[in-house]
């Protein structure tokens, strides 16, 4: 008897992590957390590549520094601040909720850290733009 092919509609991890259609806010927080984690991992490698410019002498480094002062780079840095703030603050929320310390505070903590994150983001972005 011919073995029938078994169909599985199992999602792939990326689709599973980023399917937010008709989902609750907690899934949105989870998805953004995954996305920021991937961005930060990519940034870590980029950071190492940039630092490796030092090995090529002062001219390469100075060239990079002049690029770092361009408006586009400042925008990218503002984006990075958002990513770091979101991932860090949501991480603290997940630790507090996920260790069972205060599972009922998950929404309250999201609001609290959302307010803290927004204030810090606005201040640091202002400093970056006006520096």
């Amino acid at each position, binding site marked *: 008897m011919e073995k*029938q*092919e*078994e*169909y*599985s*509609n*199992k*999602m*792939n*991890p990326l*689709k*599973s*992590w980023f*399917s937010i*259609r*008709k*989902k*609750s806010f*907690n*899934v949105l*927080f*989870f*998805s953004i*957390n995954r996305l920021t984690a991937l961005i930060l991992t990519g940034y870590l490698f980029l950071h190492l590549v940039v630092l490796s410019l030092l090995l090529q002498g002062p001219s390469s480094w100075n060239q990079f520094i002049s690029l770092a002062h361009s408006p586009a780079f400042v925008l990218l840095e503002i984006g990075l601040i958002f990513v770091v703030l979101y991932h860090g603050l949501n991480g603290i929320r*997940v630790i507090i*909720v*996920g*260790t*069972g*310390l205060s*599972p009922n505070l*998950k929404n309250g903590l999201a609001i609290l850290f959302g307010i803290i994150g927004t204030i810090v983001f606005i201040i640091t972005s202002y400093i970056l733009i006006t520096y």
Partner: protein
Amino acid sequence: MVEKDILFKVFRYKQGDKKSHFDEFTVHCDEDTTVLVALQYIRDNIDSSLILRHSCHHSSCGVCGMRINHRENLACLVKVLDLNSSKVVVEPLQNLPVISDLVVDVNPFFEKYNFSEMPYIRESEFLENSAVASGIEKHTRFENCLECGLCNSACPIAGSDSSYLGPSAMAAAWRVVNAGNSNSKKVLKWVDSEHGCWRCHVAYECSSVCPNNVDPAGSIMLLRKTLLKKKISHIFKRKTGDA
């Protein structure tokens, strides 16, 4: 009474098919028509090859779980017109192999309960007399679990880790631990792994879709809290012993 023609976009797959597809059916619905009734109408009057699983029609059996407009639900609970949409997309549960159309193989789901000393089936507390056994109240939420699998389908981690025990099995595990059964230590050891309660990433979607408010995510957090307390007290005991 409000009546409308609703377009149903239904997931189709038969054993041996290389790809799945969606078929469209129009069903005349009134205020009382549930998605399950509409699907039965399609099977009885339009396409007898449509395969779906159902039993009680009143959310007691939990077998008609499926994805309705991209959200896990029991087809017998959802009234079509309450969806406020002229189109209803019906798909099988995720993270389980599809047998045919809307029917998934639930064996992998129930295998997650297959811990040797877990009292999956236990004696009834209600047979000897009709009085409610004292202390039963704290178990009410677990006893509400239909084992419908909606939580496992909605969980983003179950979609990326096939070895993950899943919300429903861990809700059952918490019930054993919370009851203080003699094998609670073994159950705690069972869930204390990278594919157990520590794999959950607090998306809480399992609790969000649960039709009986069992709150599996809450149970996972309580398992973690219990384990954390044990681990911390173990560290301090060991330090005291070393001194």
